[in-house]
Structures are given as structure tokens and as C-alpha cells.
């Protein structure tokens, strides 16, 4: 991938992000923040790449593994916690006793 096309990717990605969130009800600010936060754990792919390309370099393997751990902590925790919050909203219809 040439640097220029990567810059295009960056630009279009940013525009997409700006466009995606137009109106958010305040109710969803916290879950949205938490969900977006989980997505930022996408660096796990970078960590994986690092480990795969380490070619037996043990310090690099360890750095990659720790990085992967941090990223997955972010991703798994983030999605679970978002789901927990959102579960409370979707429970509403069943509660009219």
C-alpha cells in the first residue's frame, strides 16, 4: 500500500466517522462512548501482526503478546460492558407488571 493511498483511507475513514454520528440521544452517550472505545481496541490486529512477524525474536513476541492482552482487555471488556448497559434499556417492555 502506498503512503498516499493510506492517507486517502485515513481521510475517508475520518469523514465516515464524522458522518455516522449525527444526532445521538443523551441516553446513548455512555453506551456509544463505550462501544466506540471497544472498537478502538482494533490495535489488536497490529499486535497480532507483530507477533506473527516476530520470527522467534522473544522480546518482540513478549511485547506483542502484552500489547495483544491490553487490546483484548479493551475489546472484550468494552463490548461486554456496553452490552450490559444496553440490556437495561431493552428490558423495558417486559416490565409492566
Amino acid at each position, binding site marked *: 500500500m502506498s503512503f498516499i493511498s493510506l492517507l486517502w483511507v485515513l481521510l475517508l475513514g475520518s469523514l465516515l*466517522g464524522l458522518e*455516522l*454520528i449525527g444526532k445521538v*440521544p443523551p441516553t446513548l452517550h455512555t*453506551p456509544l462512548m463505550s462501544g*466506540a472505545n471497544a472498537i478502538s481496541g482494533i*490495535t489488536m490486529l497490529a499486535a497480532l501482526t507483530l507477533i506473527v512477524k516476530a520470527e522467534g525474536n522473544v522480546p518482540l513476541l513478549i511485547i506483542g503478546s502484552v500489547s495483544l492482552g491490553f487490546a483484548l482487555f479493551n475489546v472484550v471488556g468494552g*463490548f461486554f460492558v456496553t*452490552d450490559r448497559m444496553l440490556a437495561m434499556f431493552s428490558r423495558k417492555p417486559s416490565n409492566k407488571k
Partner: protein
Amino acid sequence: MNLPVIIKFVIDLLAVLLLALGIKGLSKVKSARDANRLAAFAMSLSVVGLLSYYLGTSGIAIQSWIWIIIGSIIGSLFGAILAKKVPMTSMPETVALFNGCGGMSSLLVALGVAIFPLSGGQENFDFFKSLINEVSISVSIFVGAITFTGSIVAMAKLQGWLSTPGWTQSKVRHFVNIVFAVASLIAFFDLINGNTSSIWLLVIVSSLLGIGVTLPIGGADMPVVISLLNSYSGIAAAAAGFVVDSQLLIVAGAMVGAAGLILTQVMCKGMNRSLVSVLFGGSLSAQSSASSGSGEYTNITSCSVEECALTLEAANKVIIVPGYGLAVAQAQHTLREVTKKLEQNGIEVVYAIHPVAGRMPGHMNVLLAEADVPYEQLKEMDVVNPDFPATDVVLVLGANDVVNPQAKNDSSSPLYGMPVLDVQEARTVFVIKRGMSAGYSGIKNDLFDLPNTSMVFGDAKKVLNDLIGELKDLGVGEK
């Protein structure tokens, strides 16, 4: 193009599409939960795509598998446990912690690549390419470190582990932060000049900068800071994408970065603060202590729980205004019991949710949803404000600044211009509060001095429990 490349290409495209749909869906109540799962699915799909690509091309060594599995299991396990165990009241801190770890991950990747350059691409040295590489490594480390230390400080402050040190409220902090910023710039140029060891300087100074910038910020602004740091972690991920040459990372990181920025802007608007004043203005309380906002209360009416119960019994329409105090007292379930009794007595009950009630936008909605409050009863500020004149009783539970009429009347007040709930328009206002301490902003609340306001002193949960008892004695809600 061979097969693994095509497969990865298709999977990456699909993952980007699903992630975008996920973020989009998360901004609507109906679709939010499914959207979150969709995003989670897209993330796992992207991992499958990456691994199958390497399996199909260079192969993955056993040793790599071992380290992948170790890292994955430990990270996922801790993340899942924390997400399940953490109480709903400490959501902001939890998001901050997760966010910080995302930043740390980007930092480590960049550090790893900087110390041990990846194989391939280094054979034919290309000045332009190596420059881009160094710049993206530096950005990834710089932003990653700020995200990490900033988020940890934010978490510690929200948890009450850290207070705001006095010196951070003086002008000294600007000087200190500028020194850190300049030092990171020096480290950055030194790194590009080929001095690899200055990478450590960059790590240290940008970490300190993250601490220095976050430490002076007062609590009410914390959600904004967390949202901003969330945006940073997206930028860090995008920078890491340049480091390892991954389009998917760049797109996803850029999306999160931009979306986080928008969300930050929305939050700032809700508090009538500009991002600049949040970041550089220091905590609100420090400014206001000198201004006209702090005065003595002259006309406080305090009343007993019994009186409160009697007034409630005679009401037709009651509006509840929840705030952070409710979350701290964990009184949401007790509150629900009170409102159930009132409803059974034919009294209309509505909850007025200020956009920044609590410590985080949406905090109150989450809290009340946990206590099974029907979603339709939660009204946003603009919807509920015209209703106050026709309301008999307003119960203010642990909210303060969001019901301060100063924001409308007193142009010298630091709160002036912030949208507030017009509770003073109601016939009677009860403020349930532990004492006369000021709210988050540290500003006197004119509401308490008004003749139609009565203070009920006590812990929210205890007062509400007593209220249930009193209502029971009055026969409210028992047919």
C-alpha cells in the same frame, strides 16, 4: 493476487462495513444492542481475516501461536471479569480504564516496531518510506502514551483515589505542560534524525504530558475528557495502522477518532462549556470561588419526611430530578418503590433527565433502567421543561447544578448560559440532600433560597426509605 490476499481483502471490507453500521446503530435506542453485537462480530471477523491471511501466505510459527494464545486469554479474561463485576455507578471509570489499555496497546506496538524493525521493506532503504515509518511510530507512541496515562488519571480521579493538587490550578501547570510538549517535540525530531534511543524520552515525556493535562481537570468535566481520550485512542490505533501498514486499522481508528470528537462536542454543548475551557480552564470550582457565585444562604426552609409525604399524597403530577447523589447512594431501586406507590395512587410520575446529570451523559438513564423504570417515563430536558408550571411536586434527588436558576438569571455566574431544568416553576420543590454543601461546580444554588423550595436533609436512600414508610402510613398505593 493470490487467494489469501483476496480473502483478506473481502473480509476487511466486510469488517469496515459492519463496524460503520455498528457505530451508526449505536446512536439509536432501538438498534443499539444489536449494533454493539454487530461491531463485536466485525472485530472477531477481522481477526479471522488477518490470521487466515498469514496462514495462507507466510504461515504462523508455533511459537507465535503460543504468545497469541497467552495474550488473548489473559486480556479477554480480565476484560470479561471486570465488565461483569463492575457496578453500574462506576461506568465512567471503567470506560476510562478500558480506553487507557487500548492506548497502551498502540504504544507497545509502535515501541516494538521501533526497537526491532519488522522484516521486509528494510532491504532497499528508502528515505521517504523510513521517514513515514518514524513519523507514524512517533505519533502512535505520543498519542498512545497520552491516552494511557490520561485515562488512568481520569479513572483514579473519578474513583476518588486522586484529588486535584493545588498547584495544578495555578498558572504553573501551563508552564509544566508546555515543557513536556516541547520535550516530546525535541524527542520526535531527534528520533527522525536517527537517534533511536530518544524513543524512550518520547515515551516518558508524553506519558507525563498525559498526566499533566488531565490532572487539573475537575470532575464535572471528566466525562468530556474521557470522551476526548476515547477519540485519542482511535487516533493512536490509526497511527498504529500506518506502522504495520493496515488499512482496516486506519479506517477503524479514524472512525472512532472522528466519532469520539463529535460526541465530545455534543457533551460540551450540553454543559455550555467549550472544549478549550475544559482542557485549559482548570476546574470550575477554582474559578467560581472568587466570583459572585459563592454567597450565603439566607432563606432555607427545611422540612421533615412526613411533610414531604403529605404533599406528595395530595399531588397530581410529580417530576423526579435525579442526579449523581442518587447514584452514589445507590437509591435507584428505593426510588422506584416510591414512584410505584405514587403511581398506584393515580399520581402521574415523570423523570426529568438533564443531559449531563450524573457524571456522564446517559448515566441516569442507565441507572434508572437498572431499577426497571419504564423508558417512556424518562423525559429529556427540552421535553419536560414546559411541564414544570403544571407540576405539583418536584423531587430533586442528588442533583444540584442542573437545577440552579442562576444559569438563567445571573449573568455573572459561571453557570450562566448552561441549559437547566426549570424546577422552580413547579408549585413545590423538595430537595433531598445530605447537607448544604455546594454542587459539583462549587457554586451556590439559588433554588434552595426560594420560598417554594424545601430541603429534606439526609442520605437519599434513607430519606426514600422513610418516605416509603410514611406513604404506607398514609395508605398511599394500597387499595
